[in-house]
């Protein structure tokens, strides 16, 4: 017996890229979208859309190596960061075309997108044409697969070259007669704004920012073989998951502040509040990969419920009210206000661990003094207001930074 719904559901739908999204929550190109049955299940469970895992022209060799996963286990959070040495899908365009057709037929209201990767101009264009014919809603182009590449320059990602990015994006855009195209870029560049401008110049409709980060996930300190371990060998991984969220936020905001182009956010989102943050710095929709690989499609329930609750609480009429809300607050360092700030310890909340004391003593300005009561006290003279202690303190609200009145 399933329970009867007793609460009204809030409409989270809105338009983006000329398409109607049921909610901002879509699946990123990854294993979860590489199989028809899995995407079906995701749609039935409430995901608004999916980007089918990156496909290629028939005959393209995809030479996978296993095991491909590893983790950044931080402080007991096993999947704080996740590493993979996966490549693009083993399924070629014929298979993906079929999946697009089936999914659009069964779920006309869902967004069905596909990700592509190729080398030659005609292959890029052929992929676009065939997907358009199959009825895809938009196309994402992987310019940033961190392992292997089919670009001109071995060991380099397409999106690391500004001319190559612009040129290839132009080919794709030229072929796309009906549907929008998004270019999935990498944060591994000196100036992300330059890349975004190149995409904009190409005429492509949007940017997907960004992708996994190249990383060395860890090393077995007894055998010295790094992870993942393949019979004594290893290689660099693409790191995803919560650990990369701050980097993605920076990438998205940097693009949004400088280039007028729609952005699809990906990289480190696990919860509805992460999605709010992504949208607040300029993402139009938010893609999920690692969080789904960890907990399954069922996380969609909290994503939608939490987002609805949040909109109610903020009295926002639409999802779009979140868009870019954080950007006006972002300035360069020299534009920041210069004020006198002092740390303040709320004595009644203190649990006497003295963590703030030792942090300030050895990593701050020796501005916190011990007391016989074990409740530390901040020296007004020595405290510069750096804010370290606030984050070291295990008790929420115990230490706060107070702005001193001007004198």
């Amino acid at each position, binding site marked *: 017996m399933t329970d*009867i719904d007793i*609460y*009204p559901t809030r409409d989270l739908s809105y338009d983006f890229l000329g398409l109607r999204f049921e909610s901002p929550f879509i699946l990123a190109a990854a294993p979860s979208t590489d199989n028809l049955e899995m995407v079906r299940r995701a749609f039935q469970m409430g995901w608004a859309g999916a980007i089918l895992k990156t496909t290629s022209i028939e005959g393209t060799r995809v030479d996978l190596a296993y095991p491909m996963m590893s983790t950044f286990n931080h402080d007991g959070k096993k999947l704080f960061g996740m590493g993979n040495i996966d490549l693009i899908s083993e399924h070629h365009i014929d298979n993906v075309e079929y999946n697009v057709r089936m999914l659009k037929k069964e779920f006309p209201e869902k967004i069905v997108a596909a990700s592509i990767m190729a080398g030659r101009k005609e292959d890029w264009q052929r992929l676009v044409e065939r997907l358009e014919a199959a009825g895809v809603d938009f196309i994402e182009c992987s310019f940033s697969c961190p392992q292997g590449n089919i670009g001109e320059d071995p060991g380099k990602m397409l999106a690391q070259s500004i001319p190559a990015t612009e040129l290839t994006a132009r080919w794709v855009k030229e072929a796309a007669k009906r549907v929008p195209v998004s270019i999935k870029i990498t944060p591994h560049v000196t100036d992300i704004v330059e890349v975004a401008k190149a995409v904009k110049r190409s005429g492509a409709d949007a940017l997907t920012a960004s992708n996994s980060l190249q990383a060395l996930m860890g090393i077995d300190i007894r055998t010295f073989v790094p992870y993942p371990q393949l019979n004594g060998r290893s290689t660099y991984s693409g790191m995803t998951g919560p650990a990369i969220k701050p980097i993605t936020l920076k990438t998205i905001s940097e693009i949004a502040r400088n280039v007028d182009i729609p952005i699809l956010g990906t990289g480190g989102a696990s*919860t*509805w*509040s992460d999605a709010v943050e992504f949208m607040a710095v300029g993402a139009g929709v938010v893609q999920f990969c690692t969080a789904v690989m960890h907990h399954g499609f069922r996380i969609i329930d*909290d994503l939608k419920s*939490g987002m609805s609750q949040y909109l109610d609480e903020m009295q926002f009429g639409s999802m779009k009210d979140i868009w870019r809300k954080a950007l006006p607050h972002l300035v360069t360092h020299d534009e920041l206000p210069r004020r006198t700030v002092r740390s303040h310890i709320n004595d009644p909340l203190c649990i006497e661990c003295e963590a703030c004391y030792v942090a300030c003593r050895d990593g701050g300005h020796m501005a916190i003094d011990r007391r016989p009561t074990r409740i530390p006290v901040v020296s007004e003279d020595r405290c510069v207001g750096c804010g370290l202690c606030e984050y070291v303190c295990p*008790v929420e609200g115990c230490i706060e930074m107070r702005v001193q009145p001007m004198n």
Partner: protein
Amino acid sequence: MLLTPQQAVTESQRCLYCFDAPCTQACPVHIDIPKFISMIKSGNVIGAAKVVKSSHALANVCGKVCPEEIFCQSVCNRAKQDTPIHIRELHFFATQHEAKNGFASLREFPKNGKKAAVIGAGPSGLGCAFELSKLGYDVHVYDAKGLGGVPKNSIPAFRLSEEELGSDVDLLARHFHFHETSVDSEAFARIRQQHEATFIGVGLGLDKRLGITGEDLKGVYPVLEFLERAKENGSRSNFGSRVVIVGGGNVSLDAAATAKHLGAKEVTLVYRRSEMEMKVWKSELLEAKKLGVQMQFLAQPMQILGEERVRGIRCRRTRLSEKVDSTGRPVPVEVPNSDFVLDADAVVVAIGQQIHAEFVHFFERTKQGFIKVDEAFQTSLPGIFAGGDAIAGEGTIVQAVAQGKQAAHSMHEYLKDRN
């Protein structure tokens, strides 16, 4: 104890988020426990409360007093690694957060034009009434004692406050018509006539008697009367300084703890078997012991002493025999020449209950005298369904709610088939 937000988040982070989770299976109303816990973790506390409340009509009541040690928490997989998740406390944290911030508004339940009756407004009746209302029925609830049943009238206030009960029933009450009246045989016949389907959730309510001399002396109380009086009069109640409780179940422990809370100096529990055989939740036993309740195990009351008022109770030692009874527990036998007297200003008899409602004579009943139902909770009278303690003896709130809910769906099916 209500968790602080920080405690709740820390505890929620320990949850393994099992798939097809054993905790959910073990919960009689099948609350999606990993889901609501993950919502607490993500900061979506109202969403968490909604998950709980979508499955459970008495979410706050059970958040406070559900015996998690026999349900969800007893099967928590985390316990295989270290200690189980404090599921009930997380549940209560979420539902209280919602109750305190104003009930989230419910959607409209389109009416289907049919009338249904619910007799008894305890957990089973309320569970059924709310479910019927979700299904579109015009629901009429009858109970002489207000809304809440045992949780309202008998569960001691120090375990479940009026506000906590209110945080559930205030919301439910908007979804049916309430008639504050007792239902006798005549009224039952009338209600049956006027409604397309009827649910009986009359619970038990009648204390069993010891059947020994002195039971009618002043100061001897059937346990429900004792608990109800204590709840009604609060700290003004006075039962004297030495209280003897007879019985070995949770209800006797509640009575013992109540006596202690009211200031009795010596509270003694007399039970004819040993601690092993008590049908109690460990947490309640521990609590009673902590309060200083003394236990006289292997003792059988023989006579209540006193002229007009009780002054003591004569008991006889027992020992456990090889024979077992229908509950699988060894039968106690009396030890000759072992009588002893406990002084008492009050004696509380808590040895079980029977159905009180007089109209149950209409129904076929089980050997123990409970209303007989089939697997769809239908009684021997077509169109009349029953659930809760009245069909199986003293159970738990969550089981009663679950049965009321299931019965509502059976009633719905029953009426569908007839149209």
